[in-house]
């Protein structure tokens, strides 16, 4: 290659690099409105919330001033923090694990392509398309304590007496978890079914030829290969359950007393019933940190998968 040729190649590379940089800049220009929109609607409110949590803004009073970390001290010394944290942990852990376990079982069934599997898939998704407030109100009617409540009516048909479903703290929490699990299963099914359908069939065939039982194939092939998807389901489900307000508020409202009060309900009560915006923002900031931890977890789960995909 002559010097001239080398210069030409170099020139081409430089112009390609320039073009690529221009392309990046061009793309950036096009995505800028979207980025600005997202930042305005997420980052700004989040940072503003953090700022408010450092003030004593309460709509019952005129004006507000900077109070430093007072609201955080108040939160971490709050008498009911233990109860609310325990309720939230019980609710989140139980409903998410149930969603994933039942969701996986349903996904495996739907993956078998049995007769009517398309219809079953549509039916499975139904709870997910219902507005969650409607779900909460419908189940509140079902478990209404009077004899006009649907569950009590059904029990009366088999000779069982009337029950006050939401009066017992443990039963109220169990119903809350059950309803949220019911609502969350379709999401787990969709994600896990998608994951199951990407698994290579030849591995299963090879295992079958080697004499592996169904359980062994599930235990040693499906579960390990589906692990990242299951983790994503767990993390997203945890985020959803942690921030869940609509169903718990419509169903139990945190009652009886505050036996089923979750952190999101506390935030709502402080901000919108007590009008203590700063304290509500403090609870919101703590939840934001919890959500950020989940996002970090989510990204760290995805990372090895991306690397593996890149080869």
């Amino acid at each position, binding site marked *: 290659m002559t010097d001239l040729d080398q210069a030409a190649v170099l020139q081409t590379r430089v112009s390609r690099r320039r073009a690529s940089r221009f392309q990046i800049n061009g793309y950036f220009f096009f995505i800028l409105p979207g980025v600005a929109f997202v930042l305005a609607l997420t980052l700004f409110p989040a940072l503003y919330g953090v700022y408010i949590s450092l003030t*004593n803004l309460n709509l019952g009073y005129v004006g507000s001033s900077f109070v430093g970390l007072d609201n955080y001290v108040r939160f971490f010394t709050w008498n009911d923090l233990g109860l609310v944290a325990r309720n939230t942990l019980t609710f989140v852990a139980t409903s998410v694990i149930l969603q994933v376990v039942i969701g996986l079982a349903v996904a495996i069934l739907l993956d078998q392509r049995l007769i009517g599997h398309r219809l079953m898939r549509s039916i499975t998704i139904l709870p997910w398309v219902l507005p969650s407030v409607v779900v909460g109100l419908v189940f509140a009617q079902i478990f209404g304590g009077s004899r006009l409540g649907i569950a009590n009516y059904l029990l009366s048909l088999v000779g069982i007496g009337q029950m006050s479903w939401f*009066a017992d703290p443990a039963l109220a929490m169990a119903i809350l978890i059950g309803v949220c699990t019911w609502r969350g299963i379709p999401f787990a099914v969709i994600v896990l079914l998608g994951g199951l359908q990407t698994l290579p069939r030849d591995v299963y065939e090879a295992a079958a030829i080697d004499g592996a039982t169904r359980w062994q194939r599930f235990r040693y092939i499906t579960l390990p290969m589906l692990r990242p998807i299951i983790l994503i389901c767990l993390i997203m489900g945890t985020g959803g359950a942690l921030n869940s307000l609509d169903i718990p508020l419509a169903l139990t*409202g945190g009652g009886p007393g505050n036996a089923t009060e979750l952190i999101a309900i506390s935030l709502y009560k402080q901000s*919108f*019933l007590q009008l203590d915006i700063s304290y509500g923002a403090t609870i919101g900031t703590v939840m934001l940190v919890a959500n950020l931890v989940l996002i970090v977890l989510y990204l760290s789960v995805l990372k090895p998968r991306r690397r593996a995909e890149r080869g």
Partner: protein
Amino acid sequence: MLSRIGTIAVAAAFAASPLWIVGQAAALELNVFVPAAYSPSSGFIPGADVFKKLYAEFQKQNPDITLNYEVLDPGPAGLQKLLTVAASNGLPDVTIVDGQWIARLVQSNVLQPLDAVWPESDRADFHPAVIEAETIDGKPFGIMFQTGMRGLVYRPSMLASAGLTEFPATFDAFMAAGKTLKDKGISAEMVPAKANEEPSTMHMLSIFWGLGGKLVDEKGAPVFFEGDNGKYLADVYQMYRDMAAAGVMPASVTTMDENGLKPFFYGGETLAIGFSSSGVKQMWSEMPDLANDLAVAPYPMPEGEKPVTILGGFAYALTAKDPERAAAGWKFIQFMTSPKNMGEVNEVLGALPVRNSIWKDNTFFATNPMMQSYKRMYDGEMQTRPAVPIYNTISSAISAQLAGVISGQVKPVDAVAAARDAVMPEYERQKGR
């Protein structure tokens, strides 16, 4: 020929359009914030119809004003919205406010005083307690157009079937009757006792005030736990506990708001429910046989005591500062609160009037036995909830203890102490502002 007609029509339309534009420009757009229940958007169809009719009538009488209404949440979120729009200069010209919000809104200069425009002669038609509830520093800041009263709503036919001729007035007599009803599988009473729900506290307050209790002192400091006040509050808790322990009231009320009690009442599972007068018309429409079989009784009290009725309701208030807009706003308020229109709204919604003339002249309120029962309560002692910012915290703290007390896990005196412990740190925190 046709094309010529078309051309003339288009030319005429163009020629007339400046007139139309001028007409539109001249009309003042009056912006009003109203809770859905008191607007043409009401879910209660007869209510929606009456507001549609009145708004149309106002428009007809005032072609120079175009009425725009926006729905406002009747709960604390409504107050929040008003304060937020005030901060961003987006206030409407007129708004309906809960009487409890008036003091806070006046503090933030959201409401305009009505003393200069509201004639004394018209004010004289209102119950003095109503005027007092809306007055700050001698100036009225709203015109209440209805009040809700809470009491025990029951079916006289059910009372008769239990062998009673009249609703027990004393707590002891009520407990005795309740035990008889219990043997028949019927609870005597259900009152809402859900934590952090304002109506839960309101039902308690009538008894607490009737016993002589005070929530706050003259300076607005919480005193509900001190001395006699603390004892009276513990007595109220004890009454709730006694009813639950004797099976006169089911413990499950701790999970219910007022609407949650209705199925028990409709299904004949309870003799009486703690309910607001505002929902009576809705009850009649949901269960027509109640139209002639519904009555209200004050809360049974210890011997020699009488409950105090809570006075509270929604009021029209002026927010416009600009003289032209304020004049238009006042026209609208005057129209909606005139005896005729206010009476019509009150009758359709079943909301209790606050004008003496409506109680006297409106056939429904003057003759309906249920309404007359409310009138007797209205003529008795009435009190408004203290319009101090700490009230929300007090109310929440008092109702939060009900579940523990009713289930027997918390003693009444401990519940009073717990309510105090929930309120005082917040009061101390806010006192220094």
